[in-house]
C-alpha cells in the first residue's frame, strides 16, 4: 500500500511538472513575454531532449557507446520531411504521420545496423556506429529526392512557434513515457543487467542479442522523430545538419546528465541547448567559454562533495516523505 502511494505521488509530481512547464512556455509564447530567441530555443530543446533520452537508452542503460545517433536523426528527418512535402493531408495530421514514418525508417536503420554489429563491443562498436552515421550522410547526398548537398527545401511549417512547440512537446511527453516505462519494466532490468554483467545476464537466460537489437531499434525510432521535428522547425535540412558533431553533442548531453538518468538527460539537453545562446554576449570568445563551462560542469558534477550532497538530499527527501506518510497514516 505504502509503496503504491509513493509511486503515485511521484507520478503526480511528474505530471504536474510537465503541465507546469508547458503552461509557462505556452503563456510566455502567446503573450510574447518570453524573448523570441527563447521561444525558438524551446522548440530546439524539445528535439534535443528526445535525442538525449533515446541515446541514453543505448549508452546509459544498455551500456553500448554509440556515436551514430546523427545517422538515425538524419534518416528520420529526410524520410519524414520528404513525405511531408509530397503529401496533401492537413498539416497537423501530416506532421504526426511524418513523425511515424520518420521514426519507422530510422528504426529500420537501427535494426539493420544493430543486427549486423552484434558481435562488436565497446570501442569497436563506437567506431562502427560513427562510420554508419557518416555513411547515411554520404548516402543522402547521392540519392535523388533529397536535394543533395544543397539541402531539402520547402518543408511545410506547422504555423506559429506556439503550434510547433506544442506538437513537439507532445512527442517529448510520449518519449519520456515510453522510455521510462521500458527502463522500469522487466525489459529494462534485463537491459541494465546486460550493461552490468553480460555473462551473468546470459546465464539467467536473457537473450543479449535480441535485447541489443530492441534497444537500438527503439532508440533510433525516437531519434527519427526528433529529426522530423527539426525539419518542420527550420523548414530546411541539409546533410551538414547531421554531421558526427551532432552525435557527439547528444553524447555530451547524456554524459552531463548522467548515464542511465532520464531526468538528468532532460535537464542536460535543455542546458546544452541554451548555453551557447546565453553566452552570445561574449562575442567571439563564445565557443571558448562554452567549452570551459562544459568542462566546469563535468568537473562539478563528478566532484565527490557534490555527489555526497546529492546523496544526503536524497535521504532527506525520503525521510520527509516517510514522515508525511506516517502522519497521514496516524
Amino acid at each position, binding site marked *: 500500500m505504502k509503496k503504491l502511494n509513493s509511486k503515485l505521488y511521484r507520478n503526480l509530481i511528474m505530471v504536474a511538472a510537465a503541465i507546469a512547464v508547458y503552461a509557462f512556455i505556452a503563456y510566455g509564447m502567446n503573450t510574447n513575454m518570453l*524573448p*523570441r530567441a527563447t*521561444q525558438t530555443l524551446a522548440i530546439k530543446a524539445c528535439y534535443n531532449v528526445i535525442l538525449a533520452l533515446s541515446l541514453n537508452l543505448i549508452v546509459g542503460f544498455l551500456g553500448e557507446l554509440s556515436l551514430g545517433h546523427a545517422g538515425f536523426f538524419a534518416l528520420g528527418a529526410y524520410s519524414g520531411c520528404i513525405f511531408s512535402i509530397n503529401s496533401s493531408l492537413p498539416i497537423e495530421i501530416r506532421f504526426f504521420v511524418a513523425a511515424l514514418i520518420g521514426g519507422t525508417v530510422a528504426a529500420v536503420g537501427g535494426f539493420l545496423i544493430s543486427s549486423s554489429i552484434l558481435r562488436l563491443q565497446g570501442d569497436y562498436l563506437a567506431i562502427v556506429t560513427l562510420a554508419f552515421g557518416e555513411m547515411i550522410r554520404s548516402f543522402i547526398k547521392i540519392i535523388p529526392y533529397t536535394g543533395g548537398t544543397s539541402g531539402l527545401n520547402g518543408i511545410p511549417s506547422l504555423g506559429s512557434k506556439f503550434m510547433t512547440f506544442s506538437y513537439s512537446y507532445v512527442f517529448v511527453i510520449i518519449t519520456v513515457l515510453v522510455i521510462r516505462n521500458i527502463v522500469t519494466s522487466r525489459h529494462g532490468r534485463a537491459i541494465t543487467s546486460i550493461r552490468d554483467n553480460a555473462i551473468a545476464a546470459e546465464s539467467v537466460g536473457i537473450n543479449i542479442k535480441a535485447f541489443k537489437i530492441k534497444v537500438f531499434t527503439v532508440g533510433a525510432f525516437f531519434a527519427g522523430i526528433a529529426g522530423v521535428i527539426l525539419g518542420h*522547425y527550420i523548414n530546411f535540412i541539409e546533410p551538414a545538419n547531421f554531421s558526427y558533431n551532432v552525435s557527439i553533442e547528444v553524447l555530451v548531453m547524456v554524459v552531463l546528465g548522467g548515464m542511465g538518468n532520464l531526468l538528468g538527460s532532460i535537464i542536460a539537453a535543455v542546458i546544452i541547448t541554451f548555453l551557447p*545562446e*546565453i553566452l*552570445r554576449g561574449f562575442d567571439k570568445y563564445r565557443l571558448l*567559454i562554452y567549452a570551459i563551462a562544459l568542462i566546469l560542469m563535468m568537473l562539478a558534477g563528478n566532484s565527490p562533495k557534490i555527489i555526497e550532497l546529492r546523496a544526503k538530499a536524497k535521504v532527506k527527501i525520503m525521510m520527509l516523505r516517510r514522515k508525511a506518510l506516517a502522519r497521514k497514516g496516524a
Partner: protein
Amino acid sequence: MKMAKRLLALTFALLFLAVGFAGCKKNDTADQLVIGGTGPLTGEASTYGTSVKRGAQIAIDEINEAGGINGIKLKFIFEDDEADGTKAKAAFEKLMDNGMQIFMGTVTSGAGVALNDAIKNEGLLHVTPSASQIEAIISPNSFRICFNDVDQGKAMAEYIYEKLGFTKAAILYNQDDSYSSGLYEAFKARWNELGGTISADTSFPKSATDFNAQLTKIAGSDAEFLFMPIYAEKAAQIVIAANSKNINLPVIGCDGLDGILNYLQGDNAKLVEGLIYYTPFIASDPSENVKTFVAKYKDKYNIEPDQFAADAYDAIYVIKAAIEKAGLTVEDTKLTAKALGEKLVPVMTQIEVDGLTGKMTFSESGEPTKSAKVAEIKDGKYVAKE
C-alpha cells in the same frame, strides 16, 4: 572539496554574467534604424562572416559620420550563426529581440535558406551580401548583392568558351559544398550546350587533404584548362599538389578563389601566376571609391578586404539608397520591421547603386543586375582582365 565549491560558484557567476550581458541589449535609442546581420564568426567559414561584419561596419560608420540619412542614424548589430541553419534561426530571433528593423544577412547559403520562412513572415527588408544559392532569396522581400551560382556558372562557361577559346575542360569541385556543386552543375550544363567537352570530371569531399587520385586523372586527360569552382584555401592546396605532379594547366575559378594569395607564401605564390577568376570586386581596382574603401579597411583591420567585405559594404549602401528613395524621416525609425518593409521593399526595384562591386539594379525576384569583372593574377597581384 573547497575547490569544487569554488568551481561551481565560478560557473554560476559566469552564467549570470552572461545572462546579464545578453539581457541588456534592448533597442534603447531614438532616431536610429537597427540593421541586423548574421554570419559565421566561429567555425570553418568564419573568415567570410568576419569580412562581412567589418565591411558593413565601415559603411555604417561612414554614413553616421556624414550625419546619417535625412537625420536617421544607423545602428548595426551582428550575431554569429556558425553557417548553420538552426543556429541562424536562433540568431535571427535574437536580432528581432534586440529591435532589428532591416536584415543584412546571411553570409552563407545554407543558413539563408533556413531563414526563408521567418523572413517572409516578418516581411522586413532583407538584403544578403553573399548567399549565392538560388533558393536563398525565395522570399519576395529578399534581395542579394552577389551573383547567384547558376548565373555565375553559366557566365564562366561562356567566357571560357567564347573569349578564351578553350574547348576541353578538366573540372575539380567540392562535392560537399552547395556553392561548389551548384556552380559545377550550372557550368557543366552550359558548357555542354556550347559544345565544349569535359575531359576529366573530378570532385573531392569536404575533409579531403589528398588530391592525388583526382590530379592523376586530370594529368592523364587532354584538358586545356582546370576549372575549380571552389574556395581559396582548398584551391591553394590543390595548386601546390598539382605543381608537384607537373600539371601546368591554366587554372580558372569563380569568386570563391578571391584571396588565394593569402594561402600561398613565398615561391608558391608564383604557382598561381595567370590564374583567372570571376569576381565582382578587385582590391587593386584604380577607381576612387574602391581605393578609399581599401585604405580605410586596411587602416582599421590591418588586412586587405576581400569581396565579402565589399559585398557587405554595398549591401549597406543599397539599404541607404532604399531608405532615401522611400523618403523615410526620423519619425519612421519608430516603425516596426514589417511596416518598414512595406515601405522599403517596393522601392528596391527602382534604385540604382554604384557600389564597389559595380553599378547595380535589382529585379523583382531580388537578383542584382550588374556587370562582372574577370580578374587575373599578375606578378603576385590581382588585376582586372578585360
